[in-house]
């Protein structure tokens, strides 16, 4: 557990909870990133979804700019696998109606049984696929 970073994890997590609260309080919307993305792609008229997604990029970019060693993009990971991962995540979150933010943060905060079941499920299959990628197929990362 040498790579455990509890303080930044808690601070970052609290900010995410604050952001979800802000969105619900001001706009009445659940801060589920996959739901917001699927909605944006379905070309709903209101632009708030695209603005939220743009905020994600700029907000994360601001931190990378303020604290340059914060994040360097991963290089050398097989691109076809990344594409496959994206397709599965896009498809699965559309079908399952949420991801780590919508089900994992907002849904659990509302004690939704559906979201708790969803979160346990994607944690479990996530662990299985990491095991396969890292330990069975030994794909470098």
């Amino acid at each position, binding site marked *: *557990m040498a*790579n*455990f970073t*509890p303080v930044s994890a*808690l601070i*970052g*997590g609290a*900010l*995410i909870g*604050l*952001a979800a*609260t*802000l*969105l619900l309080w*001001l*706009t*009445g*919307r*659940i*801060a589920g990133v996959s739901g917001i*993305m*699927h909605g944006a792609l379905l070309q709903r008229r209101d632009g*708030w979804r695209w*603005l*939220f*997604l743009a*905020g*994600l*990029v*700029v*907000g*994360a*970019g*601001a*931190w990378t700019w303020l604290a340059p060693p914060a*994040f360097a993009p*991963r290089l050398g990971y097989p691109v076809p696998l990344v*594409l496959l991962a*994206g397709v*599965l*995540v*896009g*498809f699965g979150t559309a079908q*399952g*109606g949420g991801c*780590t933010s919508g089900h994992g*943060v907002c849904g659990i*905060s509302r004690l*939704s*049984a559906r979201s708790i079941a*969803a*979160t346990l*499920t994607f*944690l*479990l*299959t996530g*662990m*299985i*696929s*990491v095991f396969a990628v890292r330990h069975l197929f030994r794909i470098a990362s």
Partner: protein
Amino acid sequence: MTRAAAKNASALAAGLLFGLGLAIAQMVNPEKVLDFLDVSGNWDPSLALVMGGAVGVAMLAFRFVLKRGQPMFESEFHLPRMTKVDRRVLVGSAIFGLGWGIGGYCPGPGIAALSAGSVEALVFVAGMALGSVLYQRVAAPRG
């Protein structure tokens, strides 16, 4: 400022704060996410604390917010109507988890990682859009 403009500004502000939180927590680093899911390897529990911190704040604050009856710049709260556990949510979440464990990105961090000029994140986000459209075309319930 009109109500619509206030709503848009609020969404942008929430997105900024969300992205900042993801970056501070290092969730934009896919290896850190994989280290959390890799329970049989060199396990990094950080992601559990990110979720714990977020849920801790939201669980408390949502109560106060939802007591207000209506949001500031909208006429009503848009809360998910589905609360039951069914096959659809389980299968969809299982597929999402498989992809999450392969790439190390879930939707928020994948999009936020675009900020660092990560080509990989761009490929991931394009894949997500493809998967989303694919679902709408072939699998979404009609009606």
